[in-house]
């Protein structure tokens, strides 16, 4: 029998382990994305690859990390002391910059658990610096790493490491980040073994599975509160960076008693450009949305998804096949998948669900050569925007929403390290939608370059605004500009351009949608 006291004790134990892994990874890493912006996740999995505990870092990794672990379980023979690295989106990854390292946890010769962490590296090769290019196939996006044993019986495989380093723009940084990721897994392993020593292996196994039942029970109770029925919503991606054509994403959510079926079958086929999402991303978006509907302190684990069936059609933009380009599927399409999920659920839960948030991550990649050190650099960041308003309150302004929660890089840290000046970083007033409750405002961020650079911007909601709900108006769309020799030019949502010393990049991010009809 499951003891309600030990259940709570183990809930705390497992979450501390993933949190401790996260703290160590952030503090010892080198990529700006990891160390300053927390674009990483750490988690503990059971023997089947089911998520037991994940520290609250980045939602887009939620449903997708288990796929890495499951892929490895099926395809790699593991021994004690091994760690497997991968980024192949068609073999358990999401997009190439997200590199995952998985380690088995053995106790007395038996494999009991896995620990894993995934971090967004600032470059993994490919046709443009930062590895988030405007691309038409995955081969342009960077080095594809299938599951490989980077660590064998406790020793790093130098050959694999050298091979990876040889194919990326900032190899020293990669090596530093790998050490941080390996160390984080080692901490996880150590803590799990301590737990087993203390409570015994059977007890720990028993409660890891009881925790999944626990979360499942809570999720079922929640779904029961929703009125039975089918809820549907459609929204669009504006273009894929190659062809200027709307791409449909549709969801039908069928609620029946304590179960939900989430069906994306009616979404468009995969496209040439990089906005294709692999199924792992779609799963993450569903995980995030349903997780957000239950209380904050409930452990985030595989139990959340048990009462939910996700249906996608292979070869669509939400379940892309090899060799589709996928780098923006992770960061942009994931946001739209959340938008359609929330849009559909708003009918069932009008008091809780907000209007659309900015619906993009505004991915900025800047590459060039630092003239002081003569070394190449790559810089990547995402910019926050407005959150959608809800029946409860106005939407928050200038904040990361939904599938991302990365921190900004402090301007002073950025200017110490890179040859740019930030000239503006402020709230974009009146960009939120209007209504009974107002949508949050976006951000204006302006950079001036002190050397020649190549800039790649991948953004959405430049044409189709974030929607309002129940009579609230949509938000303002975002705007991208470059300023070349003093001339300001508006650019499309996705573009790549060489800029010269003195040129500027200006990004205005979308607001969030309004909620309810304004009384005036």
């Amino acid at each position, binding site marked *: 029998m499951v003891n*309600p006291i030990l259940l709570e004790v183990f809930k705390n134990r497992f979450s501390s382990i993933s949190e401790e892994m996260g703290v160590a990874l952030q503090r010892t890493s080198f990529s700006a994305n990891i160390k300053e912006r927390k674009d990483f996740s750490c988690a503990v999995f059971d023997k089947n690859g089911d998520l037991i505990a994940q520290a609250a870092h980045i939602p887009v990794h939620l449903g997708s990390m288990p796929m890495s672990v499951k892929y490895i379980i099926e395809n790699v023979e593991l021994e004690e002391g091994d760690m497997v690295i991968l980024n192949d989106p068609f073999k358990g990854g999401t997009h190439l910059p997200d590199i995952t390292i998985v380690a088995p946890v053995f106790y007395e010769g038996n494999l009991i658990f896995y620990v894993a962490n995934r971090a967004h590296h600032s470059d993994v090769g490919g046709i443009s610096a930062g590895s988030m290019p405007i691309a038409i196939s995955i081969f342009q996006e960077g080095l594809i790493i299938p599951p490989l044993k980077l660590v064998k019986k406790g020793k790093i495989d130098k050959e694999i490491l050298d091979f990876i380093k040889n194919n990326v723009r900032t190899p020293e940084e990669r090596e530093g980040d790998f050490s941080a990721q390996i160390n984080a897994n080692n901490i996880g392993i150590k803590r799990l073994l301590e737990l087993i020593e203390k409570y015994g292996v059977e007890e720990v196994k028993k409660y890891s599975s009881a925790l999944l039942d626990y979360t499942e029970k809570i999720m079922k109770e929640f779904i029961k509160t929703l009125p039975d029925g089918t809820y549907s919503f459609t929204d669009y991606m504006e273009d894929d960076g190659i062809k200027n054509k709307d791409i449909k994403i549709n969801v039908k959510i069928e609620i029946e008693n304590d179960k939900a079926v989430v069906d994306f079958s009616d979404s468009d086929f995969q496209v040439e450009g990089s906005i294709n999402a692999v199924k792992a991303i779609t799963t993450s978006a569903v995980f995030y949305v349903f997780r957000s509907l239950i209380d904050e302190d409930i452990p985030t684990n595989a139990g959340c998804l048990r009462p939910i069936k996700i249906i996608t059609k292979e070869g669509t933009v939400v379940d892309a096949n090899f060799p589709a380009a996928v780098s923006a599927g992770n960061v942009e399409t994931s946001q739209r998948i959340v938008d359609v999920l929330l849009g559909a659920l708003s009918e069932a839960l009008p008091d809780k669900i907000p209007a659309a948030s900015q619906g993009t991550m505004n991915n900025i990649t800047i590459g060039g050569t630092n003239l002081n050190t003569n070394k190449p650099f790559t810089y990547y960041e995402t910019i926050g925007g407005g959150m959608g308003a809800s029946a409860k309150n106005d939407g928050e302004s200038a904040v990361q929403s939904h599938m991302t929660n990365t921190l900004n890089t402090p301007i002073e840290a950025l200017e110490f390290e890179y040859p740019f*000046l930030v000239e503006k970083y402020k709230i974009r007033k009146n960009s939120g939608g209007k209504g009974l409750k107002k949508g949050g405002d976006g951000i204006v961020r302006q950079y001036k370059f002190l050397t020649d650079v190549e800039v790649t911007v991948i953004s959405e909601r430049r044409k189709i605004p974030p929607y309002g709900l129940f009579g609230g108006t949509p938000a303002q769309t975002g705007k991208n500009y470059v300023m070349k020799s003093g001339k300001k030019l508006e650019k499309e949502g996705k573009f790549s351009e060489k800029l010269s010393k003195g040129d500027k990049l200006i990004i205005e991010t979308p607001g969030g949608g309004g909620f309810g009809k304004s009384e005036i």
Partner: protein
Amino acid sequence: MVIIGVDTGGTFTDFIYKDGDKWGVFKTLSTPENPAKAVLHGLEQIAKDKPKNITHGSTVATNAVLERKGAKTAFITNKGFEDILYIGRQNRERLYDLNYRRNKPLADLFLGVDCRVNSNGEILKDLDENEVLKAVKILKESNIESVAISFLFSFLNPEHEKRVKELLEENGFENVSISSEVVPEFREFERSSTTVINAYVMPKMKNYILFLERNLSKEDKIKVMQSNGGVISTNLVKEQPVRTILSGPAGGAVGALKLGKLAGFEKLITFDMGGTSTDVSLIDGKLSITTESKIEGFPVKTPMIDIHTVGAGGGSIAYVDKGGALNVGPESAGANPGPICYGKGEKITVTDANLFLGRLIPEYFLGGKMKIYPFRVEPYMEKLANKLKLSPVQLAEGILEIANTKMEKALRVISVEKGYNPSEFILFSFGGAGGLHAAFLANMLGIKKVLVPQNPGILSAVGMLLSDIIKDYSLTVMLSEKNTSYESLEKLFKVLEEKALEDMKNEDIKSIKIEKYIDARYKGQSFELIVPFDKTYIENFKNEYKKKYSYALDREIEIVNIRIRAVGDTEKPEFKKYEYKGEKVKEEAILDEKTVVFEGKKYKTKIYDREKLETGNKIEGSSIIVEYSSTIVIPPFAKAYVDEYKNLIIEV
């Protein structure tokens, strides 16, 4: 001269004093509308007309922020960056909150001035004074009481901040805080946040100190406790009140450090369990300092004792959550309605569980002065136990186990997760509820000894009496290992050192010690470690890194900040040793014998009066020791003795 430590708390204002050879303790109800009233009342009672040497821990700054009752504040920064306080780090504190809202910044007005310094400290755009004068007009029209100024890279070149300050002062603004003086370190949001907090609490703190000073006589001296574990003169507090912002728990940590040392222990983990929360910190020969604290979600960069807080205390409520697990806290029954046993509450708390198992003794609760109602607890306990299919005893022990798990988690964060092995430390337990749980926590963490000082309820006031004058100085230098050397860093330190020595001139101290530190990291990382600066500073960094993260790298090191801590040794009261009286406890110290439950079994347990225990006395588990403000449980697996300072040492 009467030496007095005064600690303003939420409910009580505590005093400890030494008048000649005589020690005394005094408690009076706090007066939140003007905390000085309770302070002055106590001083009057203790040392009417005698000259006083007072050390004061004040919550004025803290409460101004928590209750949002600070000054009407303006924030001035570079044009284009007016919203940086609002935007913060652009993230949300709660990942899964679809209706997320941030705490609003403390400032009411945000102004941009068109000037700019770059990352080399060079001026790219100079200040336009006419623009500043226009800003002055707006400040006046908006009835601004206090101003915070923070420009990008002002730690490299403070010229613009200083000039704007001058212009504001010339125009009648008395409360102006500039970031290059408050905390000249990089990362604009955190520096600006600290400067705004300083501005926000400044007028209130100034008035408070002035009020106290007016009501004291000329011979009286008064110093104020800071969050870094040292005290400073009232003049500095008026200028930099942010240094007192989290000083509440600092007194306790200093008290633990000093009393621990006296008792022969240099490595301590402090454990302060109160009604709603528990504060823990680690002392490895000296206080752990952090520059990453927050108050109400706003970063505070000034150095503070690294104290970790968890929402578990005596009043934490037990409940069954939606998934069927038993959970405890963070909701607390507080003082009203309080635990069930206080007479009004209807939700089971940690205190009720302790009482139910016989570990709290009704007759001796607060010296028998407060009536508690054990019979009220039983029906609630039975009801919840039935729901969970447990026996009431299993439930009560379960509640304690869960509360202990949460507190253990906090203790692990400050020890294990930072590379320290708890078994090398002793647990220094204080606060009202600490003694009920300390031995169990020690057991969970492999800690061998627990120290409970005398008067554990007022350790904070004791700590204030024992504090040195401490002044912290820092500066961002951002130098790579290969572009600097011990000698050239020494030169940079010289500037801070001279400033420290100058500032110390006016303090009443016996001697000064200058401690030097650097904040360093591997080049390319974003988090620094604070390590001592001497000829082996590179090694110091590597060792510390290895200790903390269990591996080190062969990479270039970057020195981000230099840091000086000037410690002025003050006149402190001495503690005398008590005479050894033998192992046997005298009869009159044994109050009673009761039945207490441990791990489902009933144990005959003697109840001792702490006041009557003498040096050398030995006590076997299971036993319970009561004193006015706390109860100490010696479980069956532990034993205890009284040391020469009348500390109770529990051996686990």
